[in-house]
């Protein structure tokens, strides 16, 4: 058994930021990640980030990842890679399978769950053919492993993931035949859609994939128009020749550990579905468990880093390393920073959903703990 003050599950942008804040305050931190490399999804983000200077705007995602790793190394943060957290008991004990070969129990005074999210799939006849993949998977292939999954690609979903990955597939030398969006309006930032549009990529709003064809792998797709109730309109089918289908159809928070830990949940479709309730300190309904990043609602790396910071500051405060007053001042700065990211046409809805979640969190948690 390993005893530690703070265990953090997930070394993505949220987990790393949390670890850095808590370690800097003096807490004894163990960071655990199931992957061979830390950084979560940051190392496949080759585009320059948005936000302001405080959110590292203008810096490419993988360079933000490098900065976080350097900082965590400088602080000597103990990191277990290839460590799968398979269970959680009594709100403090983590069962970790290390290197897929042996188990270790980590007894932590405080835990931050920053496990991120997984890609959603949509199904259609032929969706199981080789060549149909998550947009995130294609992004890993091109930007991390430098393998172009195909030459003629169709993207299903026009949110930021869809348009950013489409752009990066063009950069990698692929041809993006079309980007489809089931809704009547495109989802991603206009600057992203404009960027792929002027590269000659056509957008099809109110369209989806009816089926994919192919014997050994995808050779073509049939696309179809949708009416306002998302029903397929007969007679609008078109065949497009493609060898790769990328699905950018949303993300679902990876909440298994929070369920196991007995955290109370809420269902908020706009943030990705079932989410552990949290308050404005990223506290879950379990007294010693915090959450941060996509598990607390699907957003983006910039917000995940801020939430991680918030969780790290407050976990360190509860461990006695930061005074309550200082923690509150720094938490408020982080919340303000989050609010600037959650504003405007795209952010406002997320802010409203997060605010109502935090409100619920405050009520449930004060009733729960005190």
């Amino acid at each position, binding site marked *: 058994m390993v005893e530690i003050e703070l265990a953090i599950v997930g070394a993505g942008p949220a987990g790393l930021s949390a670890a850095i804040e808590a370690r800097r305050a003096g807490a004894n931190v163990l960071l655990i990640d199931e992957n061979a490399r830390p950084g979560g999804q940051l190392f496949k983000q080759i585009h320059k980030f948005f*936000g302001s200077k405080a959110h590292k705007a203008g*810096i*490419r995602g993988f360079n933000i990842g490098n900065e976080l790793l350097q900082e965590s190394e400088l602080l000597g943060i103990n990191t277990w890679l290839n460590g799968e957290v398979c269970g959680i008991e009594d709100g403090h004990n983590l069962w970790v399978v290390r290197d897929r070969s042996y188990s270790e129990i980590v007894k932590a005074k405080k835990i931050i769950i920053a496990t991120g999210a997984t890609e959603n799939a949509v199904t259609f006849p032929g969706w199981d053919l080789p060549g149909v993949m998550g947009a995130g998977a294609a992004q890993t292939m091109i930007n991390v492993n430098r393998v172009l999954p195909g030459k003629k690609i169709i993207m299903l979903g026009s949110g930021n993931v869809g348009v950013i990955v489409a752009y990066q597939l063009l950069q990698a030398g692929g041809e993006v035949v079309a*980007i489809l969006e089931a809704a009547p309006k495109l989802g991603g930032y*206009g600057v992203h859609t404009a960027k792929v549009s*002027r590269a000659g990529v056509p957008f099809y709003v109110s369209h989806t994939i009816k089926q994919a064809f192919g014997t050994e792998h995808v050779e073509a797709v049939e696309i179809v128009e949708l009416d306002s109730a998302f029903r397929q309109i007969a007679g609008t089918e078109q065949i497009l020749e493609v060898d790769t289908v990328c699905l950018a159809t949303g993300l679902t928070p990876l909440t298994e550990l929070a369920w196991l830990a007995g955290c109370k949940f809420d269902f908020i479709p706009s943030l990705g579905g079932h989410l552990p309730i949290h308050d404005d300190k990223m506290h879950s309904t379990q007294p010693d468990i915090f959450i941060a990043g996509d598990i607390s609602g699907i957003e983006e790396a910039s917000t995940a880093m801020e939430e991680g910071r918030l969780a790290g500051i407050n976990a360190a405060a509860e461990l006695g390393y930061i005074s309550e007053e200082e923690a509150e001042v720094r938490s408020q700065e982080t919340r303000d920073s989050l609010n600037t990211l*959650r*504003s405007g046409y795209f952010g406002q809805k997320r802010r409203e959903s997060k605010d109502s979640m935090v409100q619920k969190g405050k009520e449930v948690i004060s009733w729960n703990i005190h």
Partner: protein
Amino acid sequence: MEYSLKTTGAPTLEELHKSPAFPTHEQFLKGPVVVIECIEEIPCNPCEASCPKGAITVGKSITNLPKIDFEKCIVCGMCVSACPGLAIYIKDYTYNDTKASLSFPYEYYPLPNPGDIVEAVDRYGKYVCDAKVIKVRNPKSNDHTSVVTIEYPKDHFEEAINIKRKIR
């Protein structure tokens, strides 16, 4: 909002003219001018921070649309490579008697070379006219966002905003 941007992917000229930073017809004819095609409120302000003359203002709420003071702007081009959305370029109607110039951010390899004849495209990637590459700038500070300058016939001044990428 009922933007063409949200259905076709690209803004129309009409939508652009309504945005606070887009140059007026007169400004376009004066000489080199910075064009910011940012018409949607997203949380982002590196353009403001990149400007050495304080000509670009986003303001405290970083979802404000950028504004540009053309009196202060010296058309240095710092914002062109700084914009994470690749939404800023420089156009010069007065480049010479018959040709205009366009400097735009470009993140595809292989980069074009000065002297290359390339295909200028519009906001939908459609061929507009042939153009000649006159400069390719890729200093370290741009962090791999190269700035390519082309010259092209004045008749196509408005439509051309980028070039067709070379396919490897």
